[in-house]
Structure formats: C-alpha cells, structure tokens
C-alpha cells in the first residue's frame, strides 16, 4: 500500500482508533520511516488530535438528557426569533397602504374631497394590527425553513437516489 502524504492525518486517526489493517499499519510505519516530512508532521498532528478530542459521552450525560426530555418542553429553535421581522413586515405593509390611500398633492391643494384621505387621517394607532391581525401574533414567529433546511432535504443522490425519478 502506498501512503499518500495528503492522507496522513486520516491515517493517523485510523491508527489511533485501531481501524487500520495490519498491512495498512505496516505501510504507514514504513512510510514514516522513509519520509521525514510526514514523520515530523505525524508527531504534531498526533498532539493536535489529543487536544481536540472530547471525552466519550457518559452514561450520566445520557441519563440527564432523557430526564430533561421528559421533564421539560423543548425550547424554540435557537437563534430564530421571527416575531421581530413579522412586526417589521406589518409596519411596512401598513406604511405602504397609508401612502397609497392618501390623495395626490395636487388634489389636496385644490381642495378636492376624498373620502379615502379622510379615512386615512382617522386611522388610529395600531392600524396595522387591525389590517393584518395575524401579523405579530404568536403564529407569526413560527420557524421558517431557510438555509439550514438543507438538512431536511433529500438532495444527496448518493444517499437517497434521484427523487425526481
């Protein structure tokens, strides 16, 4: 087996976990004996592996996880607060509506009566909530699948085949 220097990190990781066959392990050892660059790098990468590895998940962690699942409702998806954008959308929509129903300036100058204008000026505060009662309510902050939704898709043909077929 020829050892590719570009795979050294992976081979060291596999050797660390005992995943290499005897032949592969021998090839790696032989390669490290003859390749000074890889030999130096192997020592450093081995140290990095030791630093970055976390201890195995303990039985206590699993028990705590199960107890938590039973005793507490799950929190919302972290980092997602859709209430704020929903309010913005409602405000923007109300502003557009307000502008659209105001009379044109030349009509106002000429004193043309427009019922719409009168109604606009009488709109009380919180009009957007009346016009769009659903916006800003609890239902508006439901998570919307966006960038992270690729995890829920089946776009990997290697995994799930051609879905269109």
């Amino acid at each position, binding site marked *: 087996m020829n050892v590719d220097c570009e795979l050294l*990190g992976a081979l060291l990781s596999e050797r660390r*976990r005992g995943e290499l066959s005897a032949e592969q392990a021998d090839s790696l050892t032989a390669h490290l004996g003859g390749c000074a660059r890889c030999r130096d790098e192997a020592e450093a990468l081995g140290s990095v592996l030791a630093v970055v*590895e976390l201890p195995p998940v303990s039985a206590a962690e699993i028990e705590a996880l*199960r107890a938590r699942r039973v005793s507490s409702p799950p929190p919302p998806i*972290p*980092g997602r607060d859709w209430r704020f954008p929903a309010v913005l959308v409602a405000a923007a929509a109300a502003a557009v509506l307000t502008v659209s129903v105001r009379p044109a300036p030349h009509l106002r100058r000429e004193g043309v009566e427009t019922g719409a204008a009168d109604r606009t000026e009488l709109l009380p505060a919180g009009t957007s909530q009346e016009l769009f009662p659903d916006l800003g309510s609890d239902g508006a902050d439901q998570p919307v699948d966006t960038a*992270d939704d690729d*995890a*829920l898709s089946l776009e990997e043909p290697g995994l799930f085949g051609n*879905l269109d077929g």
Partner: protein
Amino acid sequence: MTRSGRPRQVPQLTLLGRGAPTDESLVRAHLEGDRAAFGLLVHRHERLVLALVRRYARTPEEAADLVQQSFLRAFAAAGRVFPRMRLGEPGAFRAWLLRLSVNVGKNHARDGRRWRLEPVEAMELPAGGTGVTERIEAEQQKRLVRAALDGLSRRQREVFGLRVDGELPFAEVARVLGITENNAKVNFHHAMRRLRAQLGGEGER
C-alpha cells in the same frame, strides 16, 4: 379499545424478528402509524447526536437542547422526508439524521456570541480552592479549540465533527456528506493541519 371490547390492533413492528429492527424498518413502522417507532429511533441514536452537537454548545444543558431540537426537526420532517427515503439502503435514515444534527449544531454556533472568546472574568469558576488554575487553563484551551474549529472551512468542519466527535469511520463520514471517502480523508488531513497551525506550530497556510 374497539367496540367489541378487544384492544385495538396497532402495528407492533418493534417486537418482530429475532434481532433488533433496522432504522429503516422503524421508519416504515412510523409511517404506518407505530407511535413507538420514532421513540426507538431516538433511543438508538441520541448518544451519537449528543456527541455531534455538544461541540457547538457551551453547557450540558445547551447540548441537551440541541439534541432535542435535532429530533424535533427530524420528527417534524418525517412525514415529508421518510416517504421519499430510499429505505432499501441500510444507513439512509442515520445518514440523514446525522446531517440534520450537524446542521442544527452549526446553526446554533452561527450566532457569534456563543463562540466568542470571553475574558477570564466572564467564566463561571469556583470562588477558591484547589483546581481553579487548572479549570481556567482547561476552559481557555477549550475556547482556543473552538476558535480554531471556527477557522475551518464548512466541509472540513463537517468532516472533523463526524470523524472526531461522532467517531464514524471515514466511509460513513463520506456517506453522510455525499462525498467520496478519499475526499473525506483529504479534508480531514487539511483540517488537522489547519488546527495545528491555529493551536500553535506550523501547518496549513
């Protein structure tokens, strides 16, 4: 109970056969209305999901929340995804679940506040006694590792997480990510070199 007084017949695939049911058979059972099937999938994979997402969390509670979010998202998507899943391929569900979990963790970490290096004063440490210095050093080391991981490319980070945290063989890492095994290994090698450079010493430039 049925009108005749006998218990309603619910598909009980979970007890069929000599060995444990495969993930894919549990997925089928879930689609057929076996309410216990998804719980068995959770029970089977929660340790691995926790191993994957805890790197993105600062506390055990946060990690537990991420595990819950992963399974909740899986459950919510089950009706849409499971019917299209190639259940004839062993490992299809697990690969999908692991990808989903990695993404839940990544989305969590996307909020920079959770990954920011914080001053020692902000750390939760005991008021005194032995081991304080060691804890400070361990905490700082953990944060340096997090910062170094943050410097990896997306693919390198995914490969690293599945291999080091999930302890998956490279063949399965490749399967989860939809890449070749050789590609996974090369990405891992470059991730390690970059981590080496970030954590001190020479390496990836």
